[in-house]
């Protein structure tokens, strides 16, 4: 098992007297962790805590083994952050802003400039890099922000809504770049509202709901653990099979030429299913939960948490 690069042990954080993160624990080991949750669920607060900007009221926070907020400078020197709410260092050109970001992380001027050009080259930013950042399009701003987070060659990347405001081709391109960075060995924490982005980039998910962990685990586990419909396929599993199943009180959600989808919430539903299989002399070739999309899974999980909370 890979070593955890973010460790949270019973972490609680209050902001303006209000509890924002409540006793959360998680050890993140994935190459790319998706941080998802509704507005106000505590995502930004968690990012602030991971950078040592916000202090946890209780619990232990470690990033790359450095305890926070005591070792915040060490973590920040090793982390590249693309912040959603922040813009680009103003007043100069794109390359100037990226180089400045590098210098703030400890690079010398000439080294920072060299690396800034390299980062902008990697993100396919052409001559626009010499233009004032005030005239940049949203896509160019996002690339420039990503270049600022990459300039010092960080060990980890914290990306907060990296594709927000981008048009579809720009989004696909940027996600491809992020995936390349992941494949190059950088650890990524990506906070996003767009599940399709997380689906493309992340292998581990941390779902926050009202300041608590609603789910933490692999993406596969999340998409297969929704309690959603069961898919059965095979010979004799058809519309008649479905009708019979319904007569036993089982909800059938879909009928296919050689298969059905049904909801099995308790043992009686399963008993009914196997009774119909026997009656129809059906041959079951595959049986298992229908994999939900990440979006469905997250929505289901969040609804479940809300209901549980109320």
């Amino acid at each position, binding site marked *: 098992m890979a070593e955890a690069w973010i460790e949270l042990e019973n972490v609680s954080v209050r902001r303006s007297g209000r509890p924002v993160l409540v006793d959360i624990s998680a050890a993140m080991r994935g190459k790319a962790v998706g941080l998802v949750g509704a507005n106000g669920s505590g995502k930004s607060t968690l990012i602030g805590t991971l950078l040592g900007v916000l202090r946890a009221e209780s619990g232990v926070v470690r990033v790359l083994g450095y305890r926070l907020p005591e070792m915040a400078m060490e973590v920040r020197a090793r982390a590249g952050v693309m912040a959603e*709410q922040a813009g680009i*260092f*103003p*007043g100069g050109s794109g390359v100037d802003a990226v180089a400045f*970001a590098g210098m703030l992380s*400890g690079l010398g001027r000439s080294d920072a400039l060299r690396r800034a050009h390299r980062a902008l080259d990697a993100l396919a930013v052409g001559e626009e890099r010499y233009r004032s950042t005030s005239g940049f399009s949203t896509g160019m701003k996002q690339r420039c922000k990503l270049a600022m987070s990459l300039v010092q*060659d960080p060990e980890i990347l914290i990306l907060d809504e990296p594709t927000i405001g981008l048009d579809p081709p720009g989004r696909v391109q940027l996600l491809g770049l992020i995936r390349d960075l992941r494949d190059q060995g950088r650890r990524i924490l990506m906070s996003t509202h767009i599940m399709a982005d997380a689906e493309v980039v992340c292998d581990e998910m941390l779902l926050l709901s009202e300041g608590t962990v609603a789910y933490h685990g692999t993406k596969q586990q999340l998409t297969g653990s929704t309690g959603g419909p069961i898919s059965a396929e095979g010979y004799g599993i058809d519309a008649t099979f479905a009708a019979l199943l319904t007569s036993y009180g089982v909800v059938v959600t879909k009928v296919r030429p050689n298969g059905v989808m049904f909801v099995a919430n308790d043992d009686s539903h399963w008993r009914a299913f196997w009774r119909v299989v026997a009656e129809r002399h059906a041959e079951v070739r595959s049986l298992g939960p229908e994999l939900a999309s990440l979006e469905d899974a997250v929505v289901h999980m969040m609804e479940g948490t809300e209901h549980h909370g109320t």
Partner: protein
Amino acid sequence: MVHKAPTSRHVVSTIARRELRLAWQLRLVKILALFSILPVLVITTVLVGQAWLDKNFSRTLDWDPVYRFLEVQTRVVVLLALGLGTPSIARDRHEDVLFLYATRPVLPWHYTIGKLTSVWAPVALLLCVPAAVVALLQAGILVHVTFAQSGLMIAKAVLVAGATATGLAGMTVGCSAVTKQTRWAVVLAIILLTVPDGLAQGMFGTDAVPVGPVRSSTFLTAFLFNDGKDRAMIGLLGFGVLLAWGLLGYMGIHARAKKEMIP
């Protein structure tokens, strides 16, 4: 890979240098910086004239060139400080980049000192270096001025330059931390530079205690170079007021940075 937290000195100087580089892109700042060379040229010309009078007619002009220079140059650097200091934080706040600093190994005090230094350093240099040049020239070309006297003048000029730069940096950058719009920072700084001293003089006459940095600097310069002991109290008060403006500016900027360098 860097992966080692930079030193505080590196971070502060990086922030200050960038501010200066950005300011230098403004035509107004370039003009003011060039204009600030003018007083030293004029003073040097008069100094050469004085040496000529001294040599040929044994006549001396009853004036102190370093004092005169500082008196004139203070007015010039006030404009430069306005040009350098007022946009520095307002621009960052307008673009919402204060949190961006917090994502780097930058602490609120690094940010504060960096921004203040970007005004303090050029203002102090433009007051101090030409004053030192004039003092050395004086010793070199005027018979009655020794190098020891010249050294004392330089020490006094350094004190005036440091204190004046502290007050002006605190006031102009502090005003920049109050608003997100540079123009309002300029208006606020101009009000603070003129109104308190104007009110004090209106109520208590020309001997009123200094409240703003310009008048405080004038009293400090006068105490050190011209009037001497009888102006000691008000001169020292001026010194205290300049430091107080610097401290007030630091506290204001630091509070702002601490509040906004969070997600």
